[in-house]
């Protein structure tokens, strides 16, 4: 069987996200209920969730979630992990048997601290060190795949309908201040667990509805900076673009959004001078990171969620607010399922960035 990455895999999909900006905790059940409303947008070949603030007792450690094809891959990966990290705690991730979720790999979780000596000898900052270790496992160890690697957050994904995947991982038992989720509709699938969304690197997680047509241009550019696109899915390259622009180049999320979903030159020319200069500069600096084709993406990160769509708005996205809680979904009905009585509901324009952050992160007021 060909795996993800050995052929092209277009997709349709549903996305949703929720954040309690006051930091209040929600179980994963809400997202399961919301994504179930959009059942018809998926075809049972991939679903996943990202939860933020779910590991408060281990918040100082990198939480690695790994898929293993078998015991030998696990042994090899654990040898690598032990060489680079102190394992503070490790266990198999608890799952529930669901008739519609089959062929699951071995799924393990590790809370890790980089070995101080190794880290200092690498001359890398800590996050870069961790990111390189993730890349190394995914590219070099056959049958092992790190699908979550942030602090105090976790990704849970697999092959199946998203609501089934949520129940499989017992997400009603986790509590976080923010969640995202994804239902996948690949038209052409190998049925591999690693290929489901969210795709993550460190605390970034990306869920994506769409089909980007700039994939190869973006990939060729981003691979120059040490990223390895092992999956050949658009979501992976979007994650690396965001990681590169925000973590490595120090751009703000707004600036990164002006690179990824840059306005048309004709639209830029009609803007105020300051905005016009800034957007022109960003388009000129990173022309190869412009993402074209239909997409709506929710980025999760420590303390916030960001939604961005393509500038032509070829995929839908709806935002809503009720008190301290903000919602994002492909369809309004998914939001109404978990909060029928909303204070405000609106659709961002094509290319328009919407950010919801925890109040104590100094988040943007929307």
């Amino acid at each position, binding site marked *: 069987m060909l795996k993800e990455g050995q052929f092209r895999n277009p997709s349709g999909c549903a996305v949703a996200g929720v954040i309690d900006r006051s930091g209040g905790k929600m179980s994963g059940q809400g997202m399961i209920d919301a994504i179930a409303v*959009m059942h018809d947008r998926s075809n049972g070949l991939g679903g996943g969730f990202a939860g933020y603030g779910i590991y408060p007792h281990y918040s100082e450690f990198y939480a690695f979630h790994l898929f293993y094809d078998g015991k030998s891959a696990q042994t090899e990966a654990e040898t690598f992990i032990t060489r680079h990290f102190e394992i503070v705690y490790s266990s198999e991730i608890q799952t529930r048997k669901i008739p519609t979720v089959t062929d699951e790999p071995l799924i393990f979780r590790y809370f890790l601290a980089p070995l101080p000596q190794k880290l200092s000898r690498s001359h890398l900052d800590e996050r870069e060190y961790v990111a390189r270790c993730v890349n190394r496992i995914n590219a070099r160890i056959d049958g092992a795949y790190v699908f979550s690697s942030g602090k105090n957050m976790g990704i849970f994904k697999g092959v199946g309908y998203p609501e089934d995947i949520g129940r499989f991982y017992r997400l009603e038992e986790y509590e976080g201040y923010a969640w995202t989720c994804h239902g996948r509709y690949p038209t052409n699938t190998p049925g591999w667990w690693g290929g489901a969304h969210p795709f993550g690197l460190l605390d970034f997680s990306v869920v994506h509805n769409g089909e980007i047509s700039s994939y190869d241009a973006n990939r060729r550019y981003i691979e120059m900076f040490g990223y390895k696109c092992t999956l050949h899915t658009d979501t992976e390259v979007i994650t690396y673009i965001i990681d590169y622009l925000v973590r490595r180049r120090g751009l703000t999320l707004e600036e990164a959004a002006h690179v990824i979903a840059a306005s048309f030159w004709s639209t830029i020319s*009609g803007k105020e001078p300051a905005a016009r200069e800034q957007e022109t500069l960003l388009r000129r600096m990173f022309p190869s990171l412009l993402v074209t084709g239909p997409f709506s993406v929710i980025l999760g990160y420590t303390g916030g969620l960001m939604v961005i769509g393509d500038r032509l*708005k070829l995929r*839908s996205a709806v935002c809503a607010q009720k008190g301290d809680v903000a919602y994002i979904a492909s*369809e309004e009905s998914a939001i109404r*399922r978990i909060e029928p009585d909303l204070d405000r509901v609106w*659709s961002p324009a094509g290319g328009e960035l919407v950010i919801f952050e925890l109040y104590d992160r100094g988040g943007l007021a929307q």
Partner: protein
Amino acid sequence: MYIDAYGMESRALNDAVRACGEHSITIAHCIGQRYLGTALSDKALSIEGTPGNALGAYLNGGSIRVHGNVQEATGDTMNSGEIAVFGSAGDATGYAMRGGKIFVEGDVGYRCGIHIKAYRENKPAIVIGGRTGSFLGEYQAGGTIIVLGLHTDGLPIVGNFCGTGMHGGEMYLRTAQVPARLPVQVRAERVAALPEDAAALVREWCALFGREEGELLRCAYLRLTPDSSNPYHQMYVGN
């Protein structure tokens, strides 16, 4: 007949509507079920909640009223009949309509009225109370789109790229401001009052949503029409 749609899948709900012998059907607690009212020709459907995509696709008569917002592709390829939305509508509202009327109390998303077309007595019409997203009337080939601009959020009455590829029909925007970068083939002219058929549509909109028609009928509109009724003359075939 009353149907509580809570927890029902799209197919089951649609089957229940189709199997119903009564003229009037009320659907309560609608949440995301797609294709409601597809190709119906003689029913009066009243929906409470948030119906899913492609509401009233291929509608062939009768009426659909929604007390709530609707999502994408409402009235996709509808032939006749009427859809009234007591709320706002998502993208591609009235996608490729061939007849009938859509009335929206609030705003619509992107690509409203994309490729609507008219033939003889079949003239589709869309009346929007608030504002629209970008690509209003994209590839419009016939019919009438009226935007009343009663929104209060300060945004422009239409987004970018209004009338891209428009080659038939007409749009009336209740504004004095010509949309930015209108395509060269689209002509904008100020009309002091709406012609009778457009005024009748506005009166219907006012009656549905309980608004005063006086001001909306007395003011000037911007009328958008394509410059040529046959811009593709001789381009593909000797027509």
